[in-house]
């Protein structure tokens, strides 16, 4: 008796899940048709910490220029998704592709895919930039030096050109007057904006934002979110952001993915997810967040 009930409810949830995911694909039909290839693609990606499965056969395609917000309870694998994409951590199964190239594998002898070596990873990883929750600026360098460092030593840019571009980028994030300040002389919001400029200086195709306002006082969140808004409007950057700022996700993202137990439990346009969530877990999470605010 009980088993029939559980199977039927499972079937029901599967159905609603399909229904919920059908829409975003329609919504994505437009950008996808311009370039058939997704810029970022997770294929059956599994990541475990010991016995704990953080990412469970996860599939996700992100179209060029798409802004994807990732929400969900803590421990659901949101940040891990960004961390494995940035290659801060390896994956146990599956494959990740960036801009048509495998990030995790490379062609080996006889055309078989083998795990990627450092050189291959470094080449593909150059297309990805990341901004962290705790800024992670280099404390012994000024704002300007922070932004110049990688373009000069990784991209091989001339110092003068790197300096000019860095100054422009810092201007873009509203810190044109703080070039010579050390991180310890800047507020959290300012440090985070330097970190955004630093990531942009590497000309990434995809930017990852990992809870970038979580370590900030509420009154400083706005200045960081404004910079991200500006980037979204002015650049054709593809963005993946893990965020607890539901208001921002709703207004900014093209697509919202709700993570639960290492999988995308439900996804859709912001209005679908926030106004008309289909999954029980999604509803529970959103109402819990609403209560907390």
């Amino acid at each position, binding site marked *: 008796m009980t088993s029939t009930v559980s199977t039927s409810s499972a079937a029901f949830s599967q159905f609603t899940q399909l229904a919920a995911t059908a829409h975003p694909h329609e919504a994505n039909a437009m950008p996808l048709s311009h370039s058939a290839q997704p810029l970022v693609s997770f294929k059956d990606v599994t990541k475990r910490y010991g016995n704990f499965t953080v990412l469970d056969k996860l599939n996700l395609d992100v179209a060029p220029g798409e802004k994807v917000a990732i929400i969900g309870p803590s421990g659901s694998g949101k940040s891990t998704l960004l961390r494995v994409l*940035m*290659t*801060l951590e390896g994956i146990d199964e599956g494959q990740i592709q960036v801009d048509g190239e495998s990030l995790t594998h490379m062609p080996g002898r006889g055309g078989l895919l083998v795990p990627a070596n450092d050189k291959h990873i*470094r080449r593909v*990883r*150059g297309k*990805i*930039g*990341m901004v*962290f929750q*705790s800024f*992670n*600026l*280099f*404390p*012994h360098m000024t704002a300007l030096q922070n932004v110049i*460092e*990688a373009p000069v*030593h*990784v991209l091989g840019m001339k110092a003068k050109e790197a300096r000019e571009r860095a100054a422009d980028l810092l201007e873009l994030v509203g810190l044109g007057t703080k070039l010579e300040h*050390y991180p310890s002389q800047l507020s959290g919001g300012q440090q985070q904006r330097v970190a955004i400029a*630093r*990531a942009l200086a*590497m000309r990434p195709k995809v930017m990852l934002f990992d809870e970038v306002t979580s370590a900030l006082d509420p009154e400083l969140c706005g200045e960081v979110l404004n910079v991200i808004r500006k980037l979204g409007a002015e650049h054709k950057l593809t963005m993946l952001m893990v965020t607890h700022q539901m208001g921002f996700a709703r207004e900014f993202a093209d697509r919202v993915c709700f993570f639960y137990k290492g999988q995308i439990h439900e996804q859709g346009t912001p209005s679908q997810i926030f106004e008309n969530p289909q999954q029980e877990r999604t509803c529970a999470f959103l109402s819990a967040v609403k209560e907390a605010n």
Partner: protein
Amino acid sequence: MNSFFDWQYALQILPDLLRASLNTLGITLIGFVIAIVLGLFLAIGRRSKHYWLSWPTTLVIEFIRSTPLLIQVYFLYYVLPNYGVSMSAMQVGIIGIGVHYACYIAEVYRSGLDAVPRAQWEAVTALNMTPYIAYRNIILPQAFRPILPPLGNYLIAMLKDTPVLSAITVVEIMQQAKNIGSESFRYLEPITMVGLFFLALSIVLAYLVRRLELRLELR
């Protein structure tokens, strides 16, 4: 001759002692350069994610740290020639003390490197830096400042360990003092002077290290 401390005798042996003190100073400085360079490679090797590198490095560090310097230099000077490796006492002394202290200093580097937050490594990875650039420009500058005081300690400890090398006939200041003493049967003056020499040099080195610390702390 009857006075407690014979100043005339002291003045007479001073040139010989000073000449030998140059050896002491040279051994210390060259040995320390070996120690801080080799120590860095040992520390980075020990931290490597490749087991074929980290295991042997760990083994070498622990082996050398766990055996006395005296036995090591004895081995290098008196045993190795039987196997076709022969060096002068001075060469053995500098290499021996340098490598010995490299292993201690490797552990100091390790503590400094461990103190750099993991988040810095993540930033470095996200900016796609090679390990070489990452260590040189980002990680080491941050690791270096907090380990300056212990590095200074090892410099002074190393200076005071150089008399060990008299056991393998290196004529550093202590060996010279013993030679002088055994010729004239007066040990008070030469040994006292050697003690004062070490005291003075240690104070000077400590002062220089302190000044370097202050300069690096400015930022």
